[in-house]
C-alpha cells in the first residue's frame, strides 16, 4: 500500500487518533448519529470501503442505510416509526423516512448499545420475558438513542410486542399513534376496510405533519416494484446449488428487507447483489464449495457476535440457502389503486392468518431451494413464530424434512447459550448426514 511519503511516526499518531475516535464513536453513537459531518465523512469513506475489498452491494446497502439514518437523525425529513410489516412504501411515498426500532435493535446488537437499550427498557418495568427486539427498540427510544418520531404507525397483525412497544414510544415522544387493523382472513370487504384505514392514516399524516404529502406515493410504489423485480432475480439466483451467498450474511440484510421498500436505495442494492451473485455463479466461486447440506432458516438470527454460523458454515460446510423472512410474498403493487394494493400486500403476509399459510410458504421454499433441513431460530419471547413449532415439526416430519427448533435470543446475548446452540446444531447436521448415508 502507498503511504504518500508520510513519516511512519505521523502515521502511527494518525492511526492512534483514528482508533480513539472510533472508540469514542462506539461509546457515544447517539452523539455521532446526530452530527451532519459524521454522515459526510461516512459517505466520503464509502469508495475507500470498495478499495479495501467491500463488495459493491455491501456499499450500496450502507449507502441506503446512511441516507435514511441521516434523514431521520438530522431531521431532514419527518421520521415515521413503524412496526415490521407496515408497508414502508407509505412512509417514503409521503415524503417521510421510516424507522423500525425492532430492526434497529438488530443493528445495535453488535455493540453495547443493545445492552444499554435493554437496561433502559427494564428500568421502565418491562419484563425480560418479552421479545428482546422490541425491548431494545423501546429501551433505545427511552435512552435517547433513536431519532425523534413525528408519528408512529403499527399494524395489528404479527407481533404484539411490536405494536405495544411502539405505542409506548409514541407516548414518550408525544406524537400521533396509528394502528392499522389487519383482518385475519382476506376478502374484498377486508381489503376495502384496511385500504380505507391506510388512506385515512396517510391523509391524516399529510395534514398533521409538516413536510408530508401524498404526492410521492406513486413514485414510492414504482420504486418498490422495481426493487421487487430485482429482488425476484436475486431470489432465483439463490436457488443455485451450491448457494452463491452466505446465509449468515443474507440474514443481516433481512433488516433492510423489512425496512426499505419504496426507498430510492433499495433497487440499486438488489441490482448490485444480483450482479454479484451472477458473477459468483459464473466463476464457481461459492462461499462453501463443498456444500454438504442446505438449510432453510426461519425467523431472525442472533445479531451479536456468535460462533454459531462460523460453526455451521465452516465446520459443518452447511449453508443457509434461504431465509423465511427473505421471502417476498406479495405481488407487484398496483399504482392505480395504491391503498388497496398496500392493503393486499399486508394481508398476503403468510405469517398472518391460519398457520396453514405459513406451512404452505415454507413448503414452497423447501421445494424451490432444495432444502435438506429446516431450522427455526426460536427467539425468546416470540410467540407468533415459536407458537407454530410443534405444528411445523409435525408437518415437516410428514414431508420427510428434518426440523430443528433452536432456542436463542437475537439481541440479548445474556439470554442464550452459544455452547448449547452449537451442540444442537451439530447433532442436527449429524442427523442430516446420517439420512444422506453418512
Amino acid at each position, binding site marked *: 500500500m502507498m503511504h504518500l511519503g508520510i513519516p511512519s511516526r505521523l502515521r502511527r499518531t494518525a492511526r492512534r487518533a483514528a482508533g480513539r475516535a472510533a472508540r469514542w464513536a462506539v461509546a457515544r453513537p447517539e452523539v455521532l448519529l446526530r452530527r451532519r459531518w459524521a454522515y459526510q465523512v461516512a459517505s466520503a469513506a464509502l469508495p475507500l470501503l470498495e478499495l479495501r475489498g467491500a463488495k459493491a452491494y455491501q456499499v450500496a446497502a450502507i449507502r441506503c442505510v446512511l441516507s435514511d439514518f441521516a434523514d431521520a437523525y438530522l431531521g431532514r425529513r419527518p421520521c415515521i416509526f413503524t412496526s415490521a410489516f407496515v408497508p414502508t412504501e407509505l412512509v417514503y411515498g409521503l415524503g417521510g423516512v421510516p424507522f423500525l426500532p425492532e430492526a434497529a435493535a438488530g443493528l445495535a446488537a453488535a455493540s453495547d448499545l443493545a445492552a444499554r437499550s435493554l437496561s433502559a427498557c427494564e428500568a421502565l418495568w418491562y419484563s425480560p420475558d418479552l421479545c428482546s427486539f422490541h425491548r431494545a427498540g423501546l429501551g433505545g427510544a427511552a435512552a435517547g438513542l433513536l431519532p425523534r418520531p413525528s408519528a408512529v404507525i403499527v399494524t395489528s397483525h404479527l407481533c404484539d410486542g411490536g405494536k405495544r412497544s411502539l405505542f*409506548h414510544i409514541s407516548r414518550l415522544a408525544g406524537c400521533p399513534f396509528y394502528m392499522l387493523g389487519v383482518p385475519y382472513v382476506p376478502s374484498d370487504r377486508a381489503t376495502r376496510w384496511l385500504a380505507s384505514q391506510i388512506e385515512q392514516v396517510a391523509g391524516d399524516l399529510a395534514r398533521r405533519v409538516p413536510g408530508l404529502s401524498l404526492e410521492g406515493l406513486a413514485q414510492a410504489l414504482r420504486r418498490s416494484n422495481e426493487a421487487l423485480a430485482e429482488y425476484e432475480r436475486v431470489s432465483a439466483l439463490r436457488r443455485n446449488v451450491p448457494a452463491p451467498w452466505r446465509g449468515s450474511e443474507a440474514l443481516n440484510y433481512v433488516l433492510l428487507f423489512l425496512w426499505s421498500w419504496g426507498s430510492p436505495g433499495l433497487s440499486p442494492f438488489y441490482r448490485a447483489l444480483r450482479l454479484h451473485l451472477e458473477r459468483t455463479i459464473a466463476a464457481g466461486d461459492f462461499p462453501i464449495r463443498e456444500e454438504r447440506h442446505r438449510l432453510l432458516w426461519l425467523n431472525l438470527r442472533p445479531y451479536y457476535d456468535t460462533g454459531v454460523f462460523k460453526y455451521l458454515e465452516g465446520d459443518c460446510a452447511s449453508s443457509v440457502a434461504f431465509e423465511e423472512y427473505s421471502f417476498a410474498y406479495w405481488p407487484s403493487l398496483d399504482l392505480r389503486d395504491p391503498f388497496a394494493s398496500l392493503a393486499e400486500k399486508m394481508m398476503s403476509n403468510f405469517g398472518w392468518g391460519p398457520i396453514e399459510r405459513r406451512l404452505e410458504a415454507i413448503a414452497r421454499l423447501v421445494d424451490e431451494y432444495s432444502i435438506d433441513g429446516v431450522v427455526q431460530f426460536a427467539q425468546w419471547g416470540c*410467540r407468533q413464530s415459536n407458537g407454530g413449532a*410443534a405444528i411445523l415439526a409435525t408437518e415437516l416430519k410428514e414431508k420427510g424434512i428434518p426440523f430443528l427448533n433452536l432456542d436463542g435470543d437475537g439481541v440479548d446475548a445474556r439470554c442464550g447459550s452459544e455452547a448449547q446452540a452449537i451442540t444442537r446444531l451439530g447433532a442436527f447436521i449429524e442427523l442430516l448426514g446420517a439420512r444422506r448415508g453418512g
Partner: protein
Amino acid sequence: MVLVSCGYVPLEIPLALGMPAKRAVFWGPGPSCEAYLPRDFCSYAKAFAREYLQDERIAMAGSCDAMRRACDALRYFGLAREVHFVDVPRACGSGAEAYYAEVLREFAQGLAGISGRERGGVGTLVDSVDGPSFQRRLLAVTRSMNRLRSGLLRVFELQAAGHMSAVDAMYLTLGVNDALGGELKGDLEDPRIAAQPDGRRGLGDGDEAARALARAAAVLERTMHRADATGDGRARDQGVRVGVSGTCLLEPALLGVLEDAGLAVAFVDSCLGSRSFGLEVPVDAGPHETENGADGARACADADGPGGARPDPFRVLARAYLSKPACPRMFAGDARARRLWALARSSGAQGIVYFAPKFCDHAYYDFAELKGQVGEGEGLPMLFLEGDYGSAISGQTLTRVTAFREMLEGRLGLG
C-alpha cells in the same frame, strides 16, 4: 357447549342458537400441553391445548399471538371437534365495528351451520342468523345477559363494601359462568329455576341455552338471597384497600392470598370482573321492529339500516362489546389508566395489585404502561405479581403481598 376464550366474544350468539356457552376457565394447563405449544406461552393459552369432549366447541379470539397459535394447534392437531376463530379488532371505531359485526355474523353462521347439520338445533330453533326468529331469540338472550351482568356487578359492589369476601364473589361468578355453560345440572331440581322468568322468555321450551340462562340467574339470585339471610347488613372489618387488575385473573386463589394477608379488595378489574359486567347491550324495542312482528335491538343511529330499517343486531353487539371498558389487549390510548385511576379513587383503593400470568405479553406491556401513568404519575403504589395461572401461590408471592400491605400501612401511618 361452546367454550369462549375472550370477554369480547358475545356469549349471546351461541346462547341464541340454543347452545350453552361460557368463558373457558381451566385449573391450569393439561399435562400434554407442551406437546403442542412452547413452554414460553402463558398458562392460559397452554391450557387450551387439551383433548375436548365430543360436544365441546371452542371459540378462540385473536387476543394475542399466543392465542392465535393455540387456535392453530387445536385445529391442526384435531384436539377439538370444532374450533372457531373470532377476529376481535384491537380498537373501537365505526370501521372496526362494521368489520367485527361481519366477523360475528360469520361466527354465528359457522356455529349454526354445524348445529343444523349435526344436531338439528338450528333447524328447529332459528331459520337463519339474519332471520326474525334468530333475532327474537338474540334479543331475549341479550336481555337475560344484561340482567346477569348487572347482577354480578352488584355482587362486586357488595363485596367492595365488605358484605362478601372477594373469593366468594369470584366463586359466585364462576358458578354463574358454569351455569351458562350448561353445567351445574343438579340445580335443575331447584324449584326456583322454574320460577325464573328470564331465561325462558322468548326462547321457547326444551332449549338447553334457555335452561342454562335460567340456572345462571338462579345461582345468582340464590347467592344474593343467602347473603341477605346470613348477613347482618354491616360491612366486615376491612384492612387496607387495594384494587386488583390483570389480564385473565379468572381464579379466586390470588384474591384469597390478598384477603389472607389482611388486604381488602376494593375492585376487580379483570375479564370476570368489572371490565365485563359493566357492559349493557342496548335492547330497546323500536316501532319499526314491532311492525316487523319481531323484537329487535336498537342502539345507535348508524347501526340502523337505511331508512330506519331494523338495526343489524351483530352491529349492535359489536359496538357494545368493543366499547366495554378496555382490556390490556385493546389500544385505547390512556383509557385504561384513566379508568383504573378513577376506580381507585372512587373505591378508596390505596394501591393496585397487578397479576400477570407468566409469559403474557399484554400483561407485561399493560403493567409497565400503568406503572408509569398510575403508579408513578398519580402516586398510587402498584405491586406486580407474576405466576402460573392455575398453580399454587408461592411463598415468595405471599412475602410480596405482605410486604406490600406493610408498605401501604406505613404510608397510612398504620404500621
